[in-house]
């Protein structure tokens, strides 16, 4: 069964002039135990989408969707409180900069104990404090921190960034979520630390059957860890499919350019030669092109591209382009 099923989700920024469509009809579905990568450059709306799923967007944003199901429940029909109840129980999120997300004025231990769910504690009220402490220590063990005593007593600034990220993951695990949304968990981190965090996420996925939505701006960083990928560009859906499909036979010109322009993926290219690249830069939110937003930069753009293309599905490989590259393979 699909854990999360989103069809044609749009997010609008309400401003005094004209509402701006920041995310336009994006579909996303997640199965249980799946690791899905959500890839897009800056301004592609990937973080907005994640925030819309968790439901932390404020009043200025209007979320609309044809379908927004969480394990069969239609979230759009529920009231805000009911929705919050479901989401906060089953979905957890970790953020880019762990150092700045942790409270600098309290110790890690106190913050972790606060995150522990009261319903999981069984015992009389005088036993609860001890149990809470135990639960916090167990959470730290789960994320691979062995000497929990040192860690619980220290403040966030005393720990390294990778350790802080582990603590964040431990907090996210406190309510035993079914879906973990990781919004660029390893940005600005050392390569060796990156590996550690990804390995930890992968092991959680394997052992606890937890689904992970891995958000990243760089295609090449996440491909090793994901089963399926969704690519976004400037708030529009571009392509979705298994990692292998997308990496070996991208159907969309944008994905093709991303794969081609990554120096890591082109080891056969002679050193110091020119990399194939898309011209131009990412459009800003105030001046979005109509129709397919890649249009002005796309090497294959034609007149038809002023109308937004419909999503086509080829054996689970979805692409949103009038002139997909499917025929060229």
């Amino acid at each position, binding site marked *: 069964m699909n854990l999360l099923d989103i069809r044609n989700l749009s997010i609008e920024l309400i401003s005094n002039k004209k509402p701006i469509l920041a995310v336009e009809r994006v579909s996303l579905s997640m199965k249980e135990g799946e690791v899905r990568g959500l890839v897009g450059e800056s301004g592609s709306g990937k973080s907005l989408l994640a925030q819309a799923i968790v439901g932390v967007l404020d009043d200025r944003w209007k979320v609309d969707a044809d379908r927004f199901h969480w394990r069969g429940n239609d979230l759009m029909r529920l009231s805000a409180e009911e929705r919050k109840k479901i989401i906060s129980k089953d979905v957890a999120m970790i953020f880019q900069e762990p150092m700045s997300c942790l409270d600098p004025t309290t110790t890690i231990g106190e913050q972790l104990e606060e995150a522990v769910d009261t319903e999981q504690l069984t015992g009389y009220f005088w036993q609860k404090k001890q149990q809470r402490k135990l639960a916090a220590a167990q959470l730290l063990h789960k994320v691979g921190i062995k000497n929990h005593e040192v860690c619980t007593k220290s403040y966030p600034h005393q720990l390294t960034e990778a350790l802080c990220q582990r603590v964040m993951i431990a907090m996210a695990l406190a309510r035993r979520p079914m879906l973990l949304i990781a919004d660029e968990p390893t940005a600005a981190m050392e390569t060796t630390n990156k590996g550690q965090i990804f390995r930890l996420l992968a092991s959680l996925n394997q052992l606890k059957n937890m689904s992970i939505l891995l958000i990243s701006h760089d295609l090449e960083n996440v491909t*090793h860890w994901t089963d399926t990928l969704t690519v976004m560009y400037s708030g529009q859906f571009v392509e979705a499919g298994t990692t292998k499909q997308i990496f070996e036979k991208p159907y969309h010109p944008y994905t093709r350019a991303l794969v081609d*322009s990554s*120096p*890591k993926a082109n080891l056969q*290219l002679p050193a110091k030669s*020119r990399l194939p*690249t898309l011209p131009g830069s990412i459009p800003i939110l105030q001046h979005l092109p109509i129709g397919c937003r890649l249009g002005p930069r796309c090497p294959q753009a034609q007149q038809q591209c002023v109308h937004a293309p419909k999503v086509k599905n080829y054996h689970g490989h979805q692409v949103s382009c009038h002139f997909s590259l499917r025929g060229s393979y």
Partner: protein
Amino acid sequence: MSALLQVSNLHKFYRLSGYWFNRKTFTALEPLSFDIQAYKTLAIVGETGSGKSTLAKLLVGAERPSGGKIKLNGQTLQSGNFKQRCQHIRMIFQDSGTTLNPSLTIQQLLDEPLALNTKLNEAQRAALIRETLQKVGLLADHMNFYPHMFSGGQKQRISLARAIILKPQVIILDEALASLDPSLRSQMINLLLDIQQQMGLAFILISHNLGIVRHFSDDIMVLCGGSVIEMGSTAEVLNKPKHKYTKKLIMSQHFQLYHK
């Protein structure tokens, strides 16, 4: 051909606080030597705390070395002489957004190094700024814009324009490509390679991303804990790493490739 930049026995240590007889030092950089030719790129890789940034600071003159010599075209660079150095060795930083003064227009930004270091008059300076902006793929009209009006990729181009406007011989790229989006990053790599060919620059590239290092550089230097572990041509070192640390570094990035 003699080397453009010759570095011999350059090292740096910091004095830690302590009593006179009990003074401790922290060695940031062990003595190291290398040289770079024009048209070549040297990549420096290593983890944080390996001394990459210290080396960059020493070369650009932001810190005084504890010992050793830096020679440019056979001429020794004195550690206090910024006038001599800032014309020949320039640096581009990681975060282009914060290194540009937000209260100055691009023209004022680029005019500053010219006014301080050259004897050109105002019209000549404006012409040179125009020419340099075109060289980095921007329009001459962008002169009157402020930094916040540009996107991240364009800001990085302005940083590049500021670096090349004095016609330097060496440019140090301190993680200059790390914060850019992938499609803009490859544009920037192409631009840097073109400018290297046009102007005969030597680049010193400090980077985490071994894919970029492989594509961009001719030679590579692996630093760990302030000392050079491995040095040689990029293709050789990346294909046949000798040291354990280099192997680990390559493994931690390359396993992502095998999957493909």
